[in-house]
């Protein structure tokens, strides 16, 4: 088994790197009542003002630690259900009803987090310390351009989020695991891969085969880690060429992940509407069946399967990505150490 306690890099990666945006749940998960979500190594309480404006705090009352999510939302603040202490969206305690005027009033006593909504999901900036202004949320064009249409598919899988990335960083599994699927029956089952660097990450792609099967995958960092890939639709999918998948994965706990896949297509007018109709009516179910094949494999793998591997050329992308993540984790640790020293 992995010995996390002895490996600080592993400990950093297990809960997700800091100072990044992460999708944390579909928009619909948060309605009028405060919602508690375990993500990224802590619990968050998320709630909305009546205007729909979102707020997020650590789900921990500064008084005695009851979950704030058990309390009541009062616009931009939450009143804890245990003793009524009120905490504002910025983490400042605005009222201590049981002991008015006490020192806790006016103190910044709870971690606060920036949240933003886009493409059917709520994104949270996982800052290492509270910040006034997070970097902008930068999403790929498949999710922001009017030329594309998209649907979010959200699922929770019993596997670490890095297993989910490994799976997406491994295009060759499409040819085998998804052989029977509606869109991945074609193409060679041997291939040579190469890594191509981009400004924001890298592309892992087959040499000499494009738009036939799941032939390439991209990893990108825009203060949000996301992945992109394209899979050709069969003829019955109509005009519009390959459909794109944008993926982003967030740790819930060590062996459970929040998995976000946006299915996107470059279409307009009646063709876009027809795809959206077909997606609802039948394609979503077919896509789901393909994704279930991935989930099942992932969930039956032992949590320490990645400690006993014999990788070959098709796994180059995984190796490249893991090395990159370890480097980012080391940078984060160095930064934390530097701040500690300044404080000391």
């Amino acid at each position, binding site marked *: 088994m992995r010995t996390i306690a002895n490996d600080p890099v592993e400990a950093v990666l297990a809960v997700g790197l800091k100072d990044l945006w992460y999708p944390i749940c579909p928009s619909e998960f948060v309605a009028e009542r405060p919602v508690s979500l375990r993500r990224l190594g802590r619990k968050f309480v998320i709630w909305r003002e009546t205007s729909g404006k979102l707020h997020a705090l650590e789900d921990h009352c500064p008084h005695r630690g009851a979950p704030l999510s058990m309390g009541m939302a009062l616009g931009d603040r939450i009143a804890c259900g245990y003793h009524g202490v009120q905490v504002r969206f910025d983490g400042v305690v605005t009222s201590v009803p049981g002991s008015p005027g006490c020192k806790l009033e006016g103190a910044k006593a709870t971690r606060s987090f920036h949240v933003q909504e886009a493409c059917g999901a709520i994104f949270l900036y996982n800052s290492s310390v509270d910040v006034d202004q997070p970097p902008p949320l930068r999403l790929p064009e498949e999710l922001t351009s009017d030329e594309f249409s998209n649907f979010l598919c*959200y699922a929770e899988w019993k596997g670490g989020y890095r297993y989910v990335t490994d799976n997406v960083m491994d295009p060759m599994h499409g040819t085998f695991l998804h052989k029977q699927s509606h869109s991945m029956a074609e193409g060679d089952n041997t291939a040579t891969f190469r890594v191509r660097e981009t400004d924001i990450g890298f592309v892992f792609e087959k040499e000499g085969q494009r738009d036939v099967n799941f032939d390439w995958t991209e990893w990108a960092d825009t203060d949000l880690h996301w992945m992109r890939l394209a899979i050709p639709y069969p003829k*019955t999918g109509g*005009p519009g060429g390959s459909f794109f998948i944008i993926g982003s994965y967030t740790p819930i706990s060590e062996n459970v992940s929040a998995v976000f896949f946006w299915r996107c297509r470059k279409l307009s007018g009646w063709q876009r509407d027809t795809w959206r*109709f077909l997606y609802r009516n039948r394609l979503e179910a077919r896509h789901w069946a393909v994704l279930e094949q991935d989930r099942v494999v992932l969930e039956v793998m032992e949590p320490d399967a990645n400690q006993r591997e014999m990788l070959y050329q098709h796994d180059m992308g995984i190796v490249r990505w893991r090395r990159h993540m370890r480097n980012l984790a080391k940078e984060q640790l160095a930064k934390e150490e530097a701040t500690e020293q300044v404080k000391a």
Partner: protein
Amino acid sequence: MNEIKQDIYLNPHQARRRPPTQYEDLLGDSIERAFGAGIHDLSELVAYLNRTGPGCPLNEGIWTETLYQEEIARLAA
């Protein structure tokens, strides 16, 4: 969307708000068959639907390009 499950969230239908009607299933079948036959133009698609059904619900069964666009926009919304 369904209620949040206590355990983990696995909901195969997140895009639809209700089960499809029989008419929608038939329309989906027809459109897929048309696409499969290489029909990509709106006019050809409309002609195909008028040949194979289902009929247009807006106009005593007859599809026109305008009515198809109207109806599919409604179904896509």
